[in-house]
């Protein structure tokens, strides 16, 4: 379970998160929606431990552990996965090598046995097939020369192989056509179950037609101003953020 209490954070000495309270129980998928500049991406980076974000107050715990006190790699090994809004290109690093290194590093950190090359390829090929991706995905350098859609699919492939307990999807739908959007949604839905939680960060409601959330939260100016069921997403789509923000103010 992810539990965020009064979380405040600065970027370049400017306060972006102004006291976030949020609980994502195990097995649930929550959506965070909000206008541009509301702090959506900052929240995802603070939770995954990126440099340059200074937490000035509050807490974030995952399964009782203080997330904010952990290195990014420790958070990953604990089961937290961030699907990037802009996946990073790694020229000179093969995708297969990248995925296997990551998987084995996490397994090692958890005291589990590592997968050899054969075991890994078997697992990776099965996931690629299940996600209807091209086989050469594994041979190419990580995200190098990938289209926007391919990069997002590669994020979903990583998620499928790494099997996180909590996935944070940072505007994974941005720049995707409807087919790619469905593949991404199918990838997330396949992981849904009693031991999997997700925080789906998005600007638009359309992703939530495919990944139907248990709860929807509206983030504006660094605070969650309203929470509700999936119908809240439709209300936002129909009336726009301004109406909800004005109503909360």
């Amino acid at each position, binding site marked *: 379970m992810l539990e965020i209490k009064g979380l405040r954070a600065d970027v370049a000495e400017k306060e972006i998160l102004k006291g976030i309270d949020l609980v994502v129980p195990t097995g649930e998928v929550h959506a965070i929606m909000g206008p541009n500049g509301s702090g959506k991406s900052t929240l995802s980076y603070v939770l995954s*431990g990126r*440099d340059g974000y200074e937490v000035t107050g509050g807490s974030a715990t995952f399964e009782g552990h203080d997330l904010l006190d952990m*290195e*990014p790699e420790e958070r*990953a090994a604990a089961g937290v996965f961030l699907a990037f809004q802009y996946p990073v290109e790694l020229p000179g*690093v093969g995708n297969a090598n*990248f995925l296997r290194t*990551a998987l084995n590093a996490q397994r090692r950190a958890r005291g589990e046995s590592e997968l050899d090359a054969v075991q890994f390829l078997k697992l990776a090929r099965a996931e690629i097939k299940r996600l209807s991706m091209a086989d050469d995905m594994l041979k190419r350098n990580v995200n190098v020369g990938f289209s926007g859609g391919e990069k997002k699919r590669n994020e979903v492939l990583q998620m499928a192989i790494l099997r996180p307990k909590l996935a944070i999807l940072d505007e994974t739908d941005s720049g995707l056509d409807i087919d790619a959007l469905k593949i991404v949604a199918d990838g997330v839905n396949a992981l849904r179950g009693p031991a999997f939680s997700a925080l789906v960060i998005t600007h638009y409601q359309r992703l939530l037609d495919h990944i139907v959330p248990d709860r929807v939260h509206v983030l504006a100016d660094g605070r969650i101003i309203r929470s509700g069921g999936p119908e809240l997403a439709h209300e936002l789509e129909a009336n726009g953020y301004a109406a909800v923000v004005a109503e909360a103010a």
Partner: protein
Amino acid sequence: MNAVSQPSSLQASAQAFLARYEGLKDRMRGDTHLRAAGADSFARHGLPGPREEAWRYTSLRPLADIAFQEPLVMMTDCDAQLAAFADLDAPRLVFVDGRFRSDLSVVPAAARVRTGLPGYGRLANNDEKLVALNSMLAEDGATIDVDAGVDAGTVLLISLGSDAHGHPVSFHPRHDIRLGRGAKLTLIEINAGEGVYFNNPVLTAAVSDDAELIHLRRQQEAPGAFHLSTVFAEVGARATYDSFSLSLGGRLARVQVHARLAGEKAIAHLNAAQLLGGNQHTDFTTIVRHDAPATASRQTVKNVLTGKSRCVFQGKIEVDRIAQKTDGYQMNQTLLLSRDAEIDSKPQLEIYADDVKCSHGATVGELDAEQLFYLRSRGVPVEDARNMLVRAFLSEALDPITHDAAREGMEAAIAAWWAGRPS
């Protein structure tokens, strides 16, 4: 520049090498005229000094401060050092302190090999002062001939420096490689050792028409060692000189490669990776001459710097008036992992033909914070993530190495360097 205006330590050092020559010349084997010509040149010009353009960034003063003597004792136990290269399964020519050791060597069957005296060849130029020094003091070396049409496979050329003498020694091996028309050879050169010594090899390579020489060099000399080597390659029509040079070791190291594309459609690859830390100084200098039409040269040089190290790349491309349709490419990229390290990168293009394609570029940067975070966010510990990114940075220079065992050996050497790198 003459010896008189040199700093006194360089001058004194040159005098000591000359005195050694005077004492030994009557009992050294090999061509006395070529040796005397080298001595004559060295007596007149001495060691390269800081006022020479080609030596502006690399000072030999640390070398001149040490008195190097002739190696006398034969180092007997080399097993531990040689074991590091056991994964390279090929005939091997092993030199210890510059002297051929038949007991440690396995002579190749597909090439004619002569050892026991310097392989002077015809391509080296005593105008290069370190070549003159080598010509003067060379005692041994390998002459490898591959006959026309023969694929001689892989040959290892291993040099081990020892600390068995109780004082620093210098050795000046002289190797000559000759490939007949259409012949093939992969030469893997390894330089390693223990203690303080000065290794000053010169290697000449004559690559006849349609022949292919793959020359892979792995320099992992002892931390206290000096490595100053010079290569001259002459490449015939449609022939290839494909070289990669890895520099990891030594206190002061310089590899200088002269490649002359002498025949139409000749190709030269002068790729390199230099990894250094602590107070190391490493220099890769190339001089490529396009002397025939439709010739191509490729240079991808990658540097990784830590600590207070200092790195140099100088790349000169000369295109003769007749060398139309020349295709020259040079890229030098440096990863600075420390604020105290320094790189001097100097491209130099001299083009006298009007229909050529020549490009060069240089970049300097740090590890990318976004890439590092991406790897860490997937669970890769920060130190492993850095290692992966350094390896990825080197890939454009390393990946073209088609000899799998050689490339894997270099990758292992790089990984070991990374794990124990001087800070």
